[in-house]
């Protein structure tokens, strides 16, 4: 069993680590307060989006509740020129990349397949095919290597994704070419209804060694530890020492998506246990211990969260439906006479209704 790296225990007590402390030594009270605010805000975005789904404004939403530290700790460790290849649940990471809150929701409103410009924020369109993005990250990292850049690609994958061939092939390619890529696995204990024990009988962090990739297991609800191990992996990649793997132990507190009913497959006791490991509470305790948590911070965080929530609600309902003929748009980058013909025929068909 690999050791689980922790810098902030579930009671909010800062535990010392000779190896990892230097990696987060720069995080003063302000910086910690910033991380706290981030977590408050994305939790609020998540809650709002869930509510918007219930109100019929979104078709679906995959909540990240409980995974805030894993996403903020890693997302805030990245540089602007790094590149994220994520799955659908990494809205906290996207927030760190600078994706506008409303853009996080567009896809789930069903108006577009991509909420933002990947090149503007350094984050690819979230991937729905489980595991596929791990190869994209690896390939992108090869590109960075070819360019002579020290930018890094990071793939976010789930515990379930570890069973897909693509993720394992990605580890093969990353190791062979020593690609500057990080596989960041949020082990939130479930793939929809399937507990991680169905995917593996040993810790997921044991997997990469057999591919020649160094791995760590980290308390994914500890934002400090997550940031420390992510920074360490980034450094490794930047100095040309190849890929890394991080298993962040966390828990999906909500349903898989708003369409899911988790009471069918897990019990309340388990949920309670994890409620005690809340990532926000423990950082708040630390800040309190440091004397850095006062009404000012609380209010600022709340105000930011309120503002984002308001922006979200106003923004999303104002998003226009796509134009009918946009169904034919961007299928190809270059002219395509046959598709044009289909589009024109459909346009004429639609005009028939107008007249």
């Amino acid at each position: 069993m690999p050791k689980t790296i922790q810098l902030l225990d579930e009671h909010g007590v800062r535990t010392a680590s000779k190896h990892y402390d230097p990696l987060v030594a720069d995080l003063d009270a302000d910086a910690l307060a910033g991380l706290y605010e981030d977590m408050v805000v994305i939790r609020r975005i998540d809650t709002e989006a869930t509510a918007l789904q219930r109100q019929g404004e979104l078709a679906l939403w995959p909540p990240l509740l409980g995974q805030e530290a894993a996403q903020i700790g890693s997302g805030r460790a990245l540089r602007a020129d790094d590149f994220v290849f994520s799955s659908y649940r990494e809205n906290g990471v996207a927030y760190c990349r600078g994706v506008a809150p409303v853009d996080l929701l567009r896809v789930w409103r069903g108006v577009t397949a991509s909420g933002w410009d990947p090149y503007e924020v350094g984050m690819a369109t979230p991937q729905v095919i489980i595991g596929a993005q791990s190869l994209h990250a690896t390939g992108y990292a090869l590109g960075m290597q070819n360019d002579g850049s020290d930018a890094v690609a990071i793939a976010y994958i789930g515990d379930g994704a570890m069973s897909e061939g693509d993720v394992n092939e990605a580890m093969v390619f990353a190791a062979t070419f020593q690609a500057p890529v990080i596989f960041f696995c949020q082990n939130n204990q479930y793939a929809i209804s399937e507990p991680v024990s169905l995917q593996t009988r040993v810790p997921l962090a044991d997997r990469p060694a057999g591919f020649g990739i160094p791995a760590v297991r980290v308390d994914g609800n500890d934002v400090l530890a997550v940031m420390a191990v992510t920074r360490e992996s980034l450094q490794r990649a930047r100095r040309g020492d190849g890929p890394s793997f991080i298993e962040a132990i966390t828990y999906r507190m909500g349903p898989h998506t708003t369409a899911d009913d988790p009471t069918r497959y897990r019990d309340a006791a388990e949920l309670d246990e994890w409620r005690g490991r809340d990532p926000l509470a423990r950082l708040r305790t630390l800040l309190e211990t440091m004397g850095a948590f006062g009404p000012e911070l609380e209010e600022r965080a709340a105000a930011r969260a309120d503002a984002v929530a308001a922006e979200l609600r106003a923004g999303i309902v104002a998003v226009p439906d796509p134009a009918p003929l946009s169904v034919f748009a961007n299928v190809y980058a270059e002219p395509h006479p046959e598709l044009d013909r289909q589009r024109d025929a459909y346009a004429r068909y639609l005009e028939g209704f107008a007249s």
Partner: protein
Amino acid sequence: MTAMTMAGALNAGLRRALTDDEKVVLMGEDIGRLGGVYRVTDGLQAEFGERRVMDTPLAESGILGTAVGLAYAGYRPVVEIQFDGFVYPAFDQIVSQVAKMHARTGGRVRLPITIRIPVGGGIGAAEHHSESPEAYFAHTAGLRVVSVATPQDACTVLRQAIASDDPVVFFEPKRRYHVKGEVDDALALDAALPLGEARVAREGDQVTLIAWGGMTGVALDAAEAAADEGVSIEVIDLRSLSPVDYDTVTASVRRTGRVVIAQEGPREAGIASEIAAVVTERCFAFLEHAPVRVTGHDVPYPPAKLEKHHLPDLDRLLYGVDQVLDRAGVNA
């Protein structure tokens, strides 16, 4: 006869298959404890145990590949692919193994595998959840491909597929999961319409309208609407997409001389293309008009708010009917 949704009818069919043949095993993601994201396998793990109703690791090639091995060992695996768009990681195992094993081994190894795939759109889903991949499988020799439109067929054809010694790709139109119908889940399989035969869902004599799966209901609605305008449409619910029951199809087209084929999936090299080609070959002298294909566009399945502009609906089918009837102004 009991009133059941299509999902319920599938569940009943699976229960019966599990009961009738102890070699039947169900495999898939979230099919056990959860009972499947559409609850098609609801209660079956509790009833038949974890060895017969297996939650598998999250890996589609792994699911199909182990199903091949189980079939090699004499089992009859019924595999669930959670959504249409997730069948592609298993494509190699399906095309290179499942489809070819019987021919490869000179008939010595049979792979009676049923691959259940919730299919198609019209449900406002996210990307990869509304695909219509039927043609990929119809183009693959060695597979049988079916798609059901009614609760009764869902139950019976699924049982026939499981009982078949050939591998069958079994499509379940998601938009029909919750639609109810009367079902006799104990229907004797040899009393039922055989696997591979089409059903004339509505008789008519001016136009033959061919549909399957999620389009069958739309086609029937269109026929009803056309009847109001005095046009008599024969609706064929294809049921089997590979092989197609061309006896039924050509008999109808020879009478009507006009055929419209409705298909959700993209047009190019689709099932509708094949049907148009074959109907033209076999009924050329009878055709008053070229077969008309009303299909999804040749685009990746669009976001939910655009799907109504992608999926053939009643109006588009009627437009196709107008085309095949040479009604002025509509020919493209």
